[in-house]
């Protein structure tokens, strides 16, 4: 007997942004209730749950609000891959027959300003943080600086990615940044980490997302247009990849964990990158979207320059990317961010993405996150 397919039969989201007086955990509960309503089920119908948060508290404590049904609830704490790792756990549980209906949830609430990081939590000495090297924005600046040098990417393309994100965010009622910005405004903003300006970076933020997962052969009970989770893959870095929080790097560059996770996700799904009709890629900053397009196998290195000029990644383009405004327009509540991507792809594949709906009825979607200390999570979804 082969393992069942896994379908997403309900999606729920608490708006991203800043919500004074609302805890991250409360946003998680809101998202779960919305996802349950979307699937037309009750919390008492759920066999298991998994999810997490970086700064918003323990996910499993939400049972106090949702109902003390005794279900198994696994907390996941895996940085930017928290949502992706929770998805992997949920998929495995359904395929293994450990449950028929599961909830995956991610939420967060971060202080304003760039993330601060504790060197000891990453196995690094205190000196690394004290001397000002443990700053994620530096890594992004240095990685795209080298990529631009190697592959002929212009600063105009960086601005183009950010302008697209804010334009898409303006069409998304649950996004944080909903005002379109011109490329000139983006380029003229204060420089944060050369070549990246303030408006090319996302900000830590707040939000919550939840999904209801079911066996594929039972999906029709809950959902008219189920979206199938064809694969969910998490990878850590291999020796030689160019990673955040690295006091040194190998002389020989190896593929990033993004390359490994994307390749494995496409292979497991039996679907190729050329079949993707809508993609959400980690755009912690504008350069990341450019590099991740290639690392995920969606284009060749250097091809992004022409793609951006032609609008290929716009909502009406051949491969719309970050249709909900991505991290740039939604901010990055770490626990929720990866699941926001899945939420958006499901909405797009179901044709209910409102003003930002990709035309033509896309059939295949892809999501990708990247984070410290060199992890990536990818999913392939299809109708």
């Amino acid at each position, binding site marked *: 007997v082969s393992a069942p397919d896994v379908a997403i039969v309900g999606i729920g989201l608490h708006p991203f942004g800043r919500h004074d007086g609302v805890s991250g955990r409360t946003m998680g509960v809101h998202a779960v209730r919305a996802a349950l309503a979307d699937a037309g089920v009750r919390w008492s119908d759920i066999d298991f749950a998994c999810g997490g948060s970086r700064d918003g508290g323990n996910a499993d404590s939400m049972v106090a609000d949702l109902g003390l049904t005794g279900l198994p609830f696994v907390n996941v704490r895996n940085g930017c891959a928290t949502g992706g790792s929770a998805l992997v756990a949920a998929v495995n549980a359904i395929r293994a027959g450990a449950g028929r209906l599961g909830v995956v949830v991610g939420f967060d609430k971060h202080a304003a*300003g*760039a*993330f*601060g990081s*504790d*060197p000891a939590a990453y196995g690094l*000495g*205190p*000196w690394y*943080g*004290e*001397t*000002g*090297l*443990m*700053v994620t*924005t*530096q890594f992004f*600046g*240095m*990685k795209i*600086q*080298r990529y631009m*040098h190697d592959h002929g990417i212009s600063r105009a393309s960086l601005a183009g990615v950010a302008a697209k994100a804010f334009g898409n965010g303006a069409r998304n009622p649950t996004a944080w940044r909903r005002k379109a910005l011109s490329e000139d405004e983006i380029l003229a903003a*204060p*420089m*944060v*980490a*050369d*070549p*990246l300006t303030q408006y090319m970076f996302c900000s830590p933020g707040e939000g919550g997302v939840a999904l209801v997962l079911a066996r594929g052969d039972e999906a029709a009970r809950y959902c008219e247009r189920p979206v199938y989770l064809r694969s969910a893959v998490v990878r850590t870095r291999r*020796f*030689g990849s160019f990673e955040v929080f*690295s*006091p*040194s*790097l*190998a*002389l020989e560059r190896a593929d990033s964990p993004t390359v490994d996770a994307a390749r494995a996700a496409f292979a497991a799904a039996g679907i190729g990158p050329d079949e993707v009709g809508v993609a959400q890629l980690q755009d912690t900053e504008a350069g990341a979207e450019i590099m991740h397009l290639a690392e995920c196998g969606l284009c060749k290195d250097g091809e992004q320059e022409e793609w951006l000029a032609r609008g290929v990644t716009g909502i009406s383009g051949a491969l719309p990317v970050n249709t909900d405004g991505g991290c740039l327009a939604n901010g990055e509540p770490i626990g929720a961010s990866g699941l926001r991507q899945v939420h958006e792809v499901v909405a797009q594949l179901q044709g209910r993405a409102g003003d930002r709906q990709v035309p033509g009825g896309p059939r295949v979607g892809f999501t990708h996150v990247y984070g410290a200390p060199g992890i990536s999570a990818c999913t392939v979804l299809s109708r």
Partner: protein
Amino acid sequence: VPAALPVEPVAEGLFTWPADEPRLIGSRCLDCGVVTFPAQGSCPACTSVAVEKRLLGRTGTLYTWTVQGFRPKAPYAGPDGGFEPYGVGYVELPGEVRVEARLTVADPTRLRIGMPMELVVVPFGDRVTYAFAPVTGAGP
């Protein structure tokens, strides 16, 4: 001039100090030869635990760079008072490893991928840390 600089480094075991020609202290795998910085007790490439300490070369080329434009959050321990942007980069030490470091230059017009760089020890508050500086006379 080393004599004019503070004696205390930001961490023991990172670089030789005091020294007229300071060197970074890395490690080298006895099984596969891979070099890491700082020194660690195992090899991230081949998983061996047979490693030895190694003093790294003092000169290399700039692999990539940026300029830190805002004061980092804690645990950053830079000088109090007005924040001055600082350069950060990876310097490729030939045949060894690419080392992340503060740069003595924070002016983007004076930084170029591939430019020759050399190790220096610079004041950092009341301690010293390692950094890389453009090789004198090499120009950007």
